């Protein structure tokens, strides 16, 4: 009996987004990173092509991250608070595809660093490293608009990925990104309708579909991951079916979410029955990333070196690059 072919054929291609610029392209990055471009659901290579691998970014803060659990600070102890050195260490020792600089120090309810200080930090990080860069604001929309007014031109030509634009705050960052040739992260809070709306707004102010990466939020395993799993899957299905405003690569911020959870943070001393927290935390982070990669994430932002290593190996396996016969 012949087995029927049940594979799906899709009409549309996910947009290709390139991050970073080499000296020939007007930047200073050694290499660029390209995500998207697939014509199939995640890893179903028999249904279409998957020209670009999912990629990893490693998280660096502009200030010493006091809120991080000890186990995530330990690997970087000597460079915390020194973002250029910290970034350099990440690039040299852990080999992520990109770096993600979080400007948490600019938070007006925190250290309230100035836009000038933030721009200086960005310049130093770009000088100290050669990987493409994601620059992510503090999360305070008014302050972020001020900060990016100096940060975006400071990184002009580097084709960074700037974050984030939202439904009620997109004009400033969109205009800056457009002026300085950066890409943007379009953020929506666990809501596919808003995800589509933010993309529509970004297009309205002049962005191209190739300039946008969707961030539908990415709660940790145990904290609503199934909602966003469905959203990512539905977004990708709509994109492949022909909805061009849902056909952008997807980003998941793994480390920032996972290390807020008690399952990742609590030490073995506090909860002996939960086992060794030095293993448990990174496993929680890696497992959360595995789930999002499976549902369509093209870019995952990681925090712990062990989790990053596992995720890179997992991507190799998913893409059939681990040297093992997958049949």
């Amino acid at each position, binding site marked *: 009996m012949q087995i029927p072919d049940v594979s799906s054929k899709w009409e549309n291609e996910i947009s290709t987004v390139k991050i970073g610029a080499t000296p020939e392209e007007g930047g200073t990055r050694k290499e660029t990173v390209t995500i998207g471009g697939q014509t199939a659901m995640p890893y179903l290579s028999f249904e279409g092509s998957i020209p670009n691998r999912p990629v990893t970014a490693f998280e660096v803060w502009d200030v010493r991250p006091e809120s991080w659990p000890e186990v995530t600070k330990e690997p970087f102890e000597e460079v915390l608070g020194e973002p250029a050195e910290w970034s350099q260490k990440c690039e040299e020792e852990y080999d992520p595809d990109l770096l993600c600089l979080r400007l948490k120090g600019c938070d007006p309810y925190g250290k309230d660093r100035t836009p000038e200080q933030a721009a200086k930090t960005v310049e130093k990080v770009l000088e100290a490293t050669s990987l493409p860069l994601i620059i992510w604001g503090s999360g305070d929309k008014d302050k972020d608009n001020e900060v990016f007014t100096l940060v975006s031109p400071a990184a002009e030509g580097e084709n960074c990925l700037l974050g984030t634009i939202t439904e009620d705050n997109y004009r400033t960052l969109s205009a800056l990104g457009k002026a300085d040739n950066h890409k943007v992260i379009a953020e929506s809070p666990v809501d*596919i*309708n*808003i995800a*589509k*709306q933010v993309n*529509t*707004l970004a*297009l*309205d102010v002049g962005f191209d579909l190739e300039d946008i990466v969707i961030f539908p939020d990415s709660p940790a395993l145990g904290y609503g991951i199934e909602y966003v799993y469905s959203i990512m899957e*539905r977004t990708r299905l*709509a994109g492949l079916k*022909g*909805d*061009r*405003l*849902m056909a952008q690569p997807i980003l998941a911020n793994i480390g920032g979410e996972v290390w807020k959870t008690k399952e990742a943070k609590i030490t073995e001393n506090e909860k002996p029955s939960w086992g060794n927290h030095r293993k448990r935390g990174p496993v929680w982070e890696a497992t959360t990333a595995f789930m999002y990669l499976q549902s369509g994430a093209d870019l995952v932002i990681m925090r712990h070196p062990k989790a990053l290593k596992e995720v890179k190996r997992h991507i190799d396996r998913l893409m059939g690059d681990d040297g093992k016969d997958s049949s």
Partner: protein
Amino acid sequence: MILIGERINAGFSDVKEALKARNAGEIRELARKQTEAGADYLDINMGAVSKDPADMVWLVETVQNVVDTPLSIDSQKAEIVEPALNVCESKSLINSTTAQDDKLDKLIPLAVEYGASIIGITSGKEGAPQDVNGRLEHAAKIFTKATEYGLGVEDLFIDPVAMPLKFMQEQASNLLDSINQLSNISDPPPHISLGISNMSSDASEKSLINRTFLVMAMAVGLDAAICNVFDEKLMNSVATGEMILNEEIYNDSYVETYRMNQ
């Protein structure tokens, strides 16, 4: 919805004059504007102005000079359709064949040969039946012939024939029933299309009748329409209908987004 722009039709006086005088500018403008308005196909119809295949080829080439939108070759004569298909640069649509053997046996093989789609209208020797069963019988015949000739179901459109509401008011509900049943003829079903503007022929509220009937028909399975894509209210109704049917993901600017996606 697959929207087939109806405007390049020599039944309209501007197109009639342009075709007679071979005025390419007028035709190109209609092609460009319909494409911008969101047409997925452009129907090309010579009306009663010409029976010369060379005129159809000229229209096709004229349109292809400005847009790469797929074309719907509106003729039931193989001697007109084939030369036109021969110069079509993208996937095209034959509009149309009836359920009569002599037409089916010429036009469906042409569709297969040129990789085109085809509309089969539920009409036979005695014209178009008005009842549901008559429509379904013709549809079944078209479907069977298409299968025999190896035409993929995705390339078959069945048109159950829209009749003017003003003169045949009872027809509208028959038509809706027919669409509903046609959408179960196979899994997946063929496309189901209608010439929507026929509904409002000679009526006072043309646009309102067209768009109201269109969304009612969408709800029971219509997925293609030959229509006036310049009718903004009709286009907004299509956008809303697709969203209500959950074929598009809702967003607050969904009407604008629908246009962006065209």
